[in-house]
């Protein structure tokens, strides 16, 4: 469904933990944002492409792919955004129960997901439509879940991409356990690029406050498990600003657990790619866990049922619009003459097609069949459930028969 970015090339090192920045939070006063430029991401932010579309150098991280790859990233982001807006529209039309938009987080997701290798296993939260895209998950598998047709429709083991997890933070422990399994399988630090494997797990700024997430930090560091914690700090957990979850920048959380943390410009797809690639490589080589905080912004509502005007200012959104993750890549590509008008026209056509497919495919979905579920609860079915299934099936049939009879009368 979309090309894989190459995953070889030189690897920038994740700064070791002894490179920890000094902690500048004041200990006085009540809670509130860390002093300084939290809104802007702070000076510690790794950025390789500015909002204006200019490339930047960074001492530790280099973007090592060619412009073709950047065109690919752009395509990924445009198509993902289109899926997202189409799904949002479908929800408004009553076709989906709810939709969690990734608007604004495309770079964080595409950059990081493209940095994985096929054997790496990914644990998403519930907003990772861009990551799903990179793992060739049919967008209809996403809309079917938000429509209420199923709870997840792909085989995680077949695509190395787990189902969405809705209970906040729970998946970070699953990822850690999976990474421990990789270790046991001897798939870390062998030097064989097809064998060495990492896990990446996505979670949010809100999730960082859950006990499970912090336990995952402990387990992964104690066992030195090959897992990259990819924190999309989109500034909000529904109505709670990220200062509600931590009084210092979140990337520094890992320092308390003894593993490295980096803050990357989450709206810069090049930087997200480069930083994540380094973190994954460290994990595969046996260097253990790391935390990547992608500093980004949730440009839409929390979900389609949310009303952000109740808790945040329009000005904040306007501010972040200037940092749109797609705009800067477009600027880079056009300014440097790396694309022509055809490129955009073709992409537009592709997006239209995709949108149409999502639209019609979602509308055409068959209703779920409750009777089937009785067979899916256990690998080894139980007489009790079989009995309930039998009852339900008969009841259902009799009821519908009765209803037809009623109509016929």
């Amino acid at each position, binding site marked *: 469904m979309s090309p894989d970015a190459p995953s070889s090339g030189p690897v920038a090192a994740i700064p070791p933990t002894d490179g920890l920045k000094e902690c500048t939070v004041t200990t006085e006063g009540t809670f509130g944002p860390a002093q300084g430029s939290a809104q802007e991401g702070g000076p510690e932010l790794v950025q390789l492409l500015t909002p204006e579309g200019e490339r930047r150098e960074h001492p530790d991280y280099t973007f090592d792919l060619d412009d073709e790859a950047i065109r690919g990233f752009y395509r990924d982001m445009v198509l993902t955004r289109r899926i997202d807006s189409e799904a949002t529209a479908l929800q408004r039309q009553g076709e989906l*129960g*709810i939709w969690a938009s990734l608007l604004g987080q495309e770079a964080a997701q595409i950059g990081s997901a493209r940095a994985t290798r096929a054997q790496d296993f990914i644990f998403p939260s519930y907003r990772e439509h861009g990551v799903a895209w990179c793992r060739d998950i049919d967008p209809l598998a996403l809309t079917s*879940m*938000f*429509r*209420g*047709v*199923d*709870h997840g429709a792909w085989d995680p083991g077949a695509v190395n991409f787990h189902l969405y997890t*809705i*209970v*906040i933070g729970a998946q970070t422990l699953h990822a850690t356990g999976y990474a421990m399994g990789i270790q046991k399988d001897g798939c870390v630090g062998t030097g064989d690029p097809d064998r060495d494997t990492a896990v990446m797990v996505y979670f949010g700024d*809100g*999730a960082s*406050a*859950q*006990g*499970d997430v912090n336990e995952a930090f402990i387990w992964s560091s104690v066992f030195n498990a090959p897992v990259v914690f990819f924190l999309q700090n989109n500034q909000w*957990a*529904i*109505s*709670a600003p990220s200062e*509600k*979850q931590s009084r210092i920048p979140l990337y520094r959380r890992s320092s308390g657990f003894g593993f490295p943390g980096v803050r990357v410009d989450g709206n810069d797809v090049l930087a997200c790619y480069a930083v994540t690639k380094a973190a994954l490589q460290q994990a595969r080589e046996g260097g253990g866990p790391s935390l990547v905080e992608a500093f980004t912004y949730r440009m839409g509502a929390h979900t389609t*049922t*949310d*009303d952000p005007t*109740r*808790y945040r200012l329009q000005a904040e959104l306007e501010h972040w619009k200037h940092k749109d993750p797609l705009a800067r890549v477009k600027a880079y590509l056009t300014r440097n003459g790396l694309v022509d008008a055809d490129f955009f026209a073709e992409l537009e056509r592709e997006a239209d097609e995709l949108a149409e497919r999502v639209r019609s495919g979602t509308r055409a979905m068959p*209703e*779920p*069949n*409750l009777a089937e*579920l*009785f067979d899916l*609860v256990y690998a080894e079915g139980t007489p*009790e*459930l079989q009995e*309930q299934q039998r009852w*339900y099936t008969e*009841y*259902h049939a009799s*009821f519908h028969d009765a209803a037809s009879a009623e109509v016929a009368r």
Partner: protein
Amino acid sequence: MTQLTLAKALNAGMRRAMEGNPKVIVMGEDVGKLGGVFRVTDGLQKDFGEARVIDTPLAESGIIGTAVGLAMRGYRPVCEIQFDGFVYPAYDQIVSQVAKMRVRSRGKVTLPVVIRIPYGGGIGAVEHHSESPEAYFAHTAGLKVVTCGNPSDAYWMIQQAIASDDPVIFFEPKRRYHDKAEVNTELSAPPVPLHASQIVRDGTDATLLCYGPMVKTCLAAAEAAEQDGQHLAVVDLRTLSPFDLGPVYELVRRTGRVIVVHEAPITGGLGAELAARITQECFFSLEAPVLRVGGFDLPYPPARAEEEYLPDLDRVLDAVDRVLAY
């Protein structure tokens, strides 16, 4: 007398409790500016300030664990758990701390903590947003568990729960949040005790026992059955721990037939406890075994299958036919 939705009635009840006692505080995820995802706490932070209406970090164990400490310091925390399926991270704090603190301290420490949980299905939500975990709490000694089925009860019961010196798990039937009805906010005292069940419809042929979201369903079923000449009584249990079954036993002795209806999966649900007690108490009056109508023993299904999963008017009537056939 004023017309209120169930959600607004809860809001008004909490407001009145906060006005009446400065120690009452509200805490939870998004309860402040947003007013909660269901707007049940709408406007409270604006009027009572951030010190009394606390937007918390995203951590349910933290919500309940800190509420314990706040209660020990003399506060009366009203905690919101955003959805039924998200109460489990707080389960340890609820079961091992909230429930046990008073007996552990031989009565020295009382924890007047209210834990509000929007529960049940029927709103077309994604996974974890439609569960009915009340049996987990009713089986836990040391907790009290109640649920409201209409705006008037919502208004009064939330105040009674907050006034109670015992920890109360307060289940709110989320699919009834927008149901509107008269609430007499002028009364100077609650019209019904917190731990009392209510006969909401009298009848002679069989008794329907229900609570929360199923009260409306059962009343509709009784209405429909009336057309067929079946006279069904309906009891809104309201209190799930302790139960108040005196009125129920009386009805059962009169009707000889009982059906318990709840959304939770049948196995191990409260219907089992009710059936066991009623059978023990009214053994010689029963013309039929107590029947149970509830969710199947499946994890809650995808939303578009929930109507098939949940008890509805037809499933209740089907059980009525079966119970009357004995």
